[in-house]
């Protein structure tokens, strides 16, 4: 039983999810940091919800939402001829929701830590708000960016419940490492389970270590 398809699938999923989430979370985190809108607590709660919801609950609702009988899943099915459930695209959508807080929170913390005075100074020195955002806020929040990327990647690699609910267990299509481990244990293939589990343990340790070493040097902490 080769484990490489599962590893490749997991890495691909984590990369795609991280890239999309960073792009989405950047404006979202900035908005949450600066807005005075009354909607802020609502949006903040929604982005944090995946952190506390059981993955099965999240996965269940996503399964309903993405199924070909639901409007979203149906639309996708009519356009592409493929279902969102039990597909890689469905996994990506599920991972985006599931890992959202891990991208938004470090960015939000980093943006909140950008000194207001530096932004005021930039404005008086001739920078438009957008210019100040690009040349002052973004560089000062770069540690938050790295933290968000690393945590999102690691969290996506480690997800299980949501993937199982939405993607099932199709080799090469939706069977990621954590599900491969589950399958291996079910079939009493402890050797494979050991290899993959130890690999994930080492990976997670290294990633967290990286984040902490990195943030020890900077002022931005993990949310």
């Amino acid at each position, binding site marked *: 039983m080769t484990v490489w398809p599962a590893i490749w699938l997991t890495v691909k999923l984590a990369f795609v999810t991280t890239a999309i989430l960073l792009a989405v979370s950047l404006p979202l985190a900035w908005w949450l940091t600066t807005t*005075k809108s009354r909607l802020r607590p609502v949006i903040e709660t929604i982005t944090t919800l995946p952190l506390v919801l059981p993955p099965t609950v999240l996965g269940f609702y996503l399964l309903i939402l993405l199924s070909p009988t639901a409007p979203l899943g149906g639309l996708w099915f009519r356009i592409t001829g493929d279902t969102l459930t039990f597909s890689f695209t469905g996994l990506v959508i599920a991972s985006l929701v599931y890992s959202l807080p891990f991208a938004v929170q470090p960015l939000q913390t980093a943006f909140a830590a950008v000194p207001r*005075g530096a932004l*005021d*100074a*930039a*404005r008086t*020195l*001739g920078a438009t708000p957008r*210019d100040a955002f690009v040349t002052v806020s973004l560089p*000062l929040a770069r540690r938050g960016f790295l933290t968000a990327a690393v945590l999102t990647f690691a969290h996506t690699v480690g997800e299980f419940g949501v993937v199982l609910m939405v993607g099932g267990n199709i080799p090469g299509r939706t069977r990621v490492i954590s599900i491969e481990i589950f399958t291996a244990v079910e079939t009493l293939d402890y050797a494979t389970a050991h290899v993959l589990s130890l690999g994930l343990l080492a990976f997670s340790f290294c990633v967290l270590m990286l984040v902490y070493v990195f943030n020890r040097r900077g002022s931005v902490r993990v949310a």
Partner: protein
Amino acid sequence: MPDRLHFRLKLRRGRLFTLDAEESLPLQGVTAITGPSGSGKTSLLRALAGLDRDVAGARSVTFRGVEWDAASGSIPAEARRVGFVFQEPNLFAHLNVAGNIGYGAKRRQVTSIAAIVEALDLGPLLDRGIEGLSGGEARRVALARALASNPAVLFLDEPMTGLDSQRKSEFLPYIARAVSQAQVPALYVSHASDEIVTLADRVLELGGGHVTGWRTAPMRLTARVVAEAGPGVEVRLEGSEADGPGASISVPLRALPGETIGIGLPVESVHFSVHHPGSGSALMVLPVTLRSAAGASGQAVLDVLGQTVTVPGVMRVPNAQSFWMSVLRVLPRPMVGDSPT
């Protein structure tokens, strides 16, 4: 086009007015803005600079005939060309010293910052990061950064907050020189009398968010540098004779022979007496004639070696036509070109 900054501001937080002030400031030399903590000094500068747009209220600001804030619209902060030096240095931590100074210069098409770097002794620091700077160095970089952005007016909001008195006395001449060299009018928020006597050409007072009025400008004489003397220079008061009284004193200031400098006279360091007090600890003893006595509303105006000095109302002047003025301590400042009026 009037060379003035006119403002009428009504800003509120909740139902309380934090600032309800109107005044017209001449855009010449240094206008000090003083008043107790919470009197609205910082709010005023920030509102004038176009910051804190989220604070509710009515704003009307006209700078040299251009409407910065009006009912019809506003000019954004980045287009007002206000060189703002904040209470904190507010430097950009991700840029080095040169990057900080160049930030505004780049955006305002300023090609050379060499003169500013030179005047503020920042040459050796240009490649340094921000973390390693001392408090005084960081202030100098912040001042240079504001000057390098080619400002039309300088706003200095207690720029020496947090410095110890030694660092303050080192930094103050830099401010004085920068303000005079840049030939840019400045608003200087401070409640430290030494800073005001050194720098200010006029003094506006705030209290409780309102303008409470103009204070008498600090007493100041002009002098000319005659020679360098140790760490400072030897200066002679304008109008004094070579061997006359108070002919020359040395002051701790960097200046070139021939330069005109201002000699600020702190109120508590000036004494008047009908008779010559004789040799003593006074830095200089000068003959004075009364030009106009203090009336019910006006202040006494004196003639000191041909220079006109207006005495603040809090001081008592002898009831005589001519008398003596002893000066125990002076606060010099450089002045390039003609002294601002």
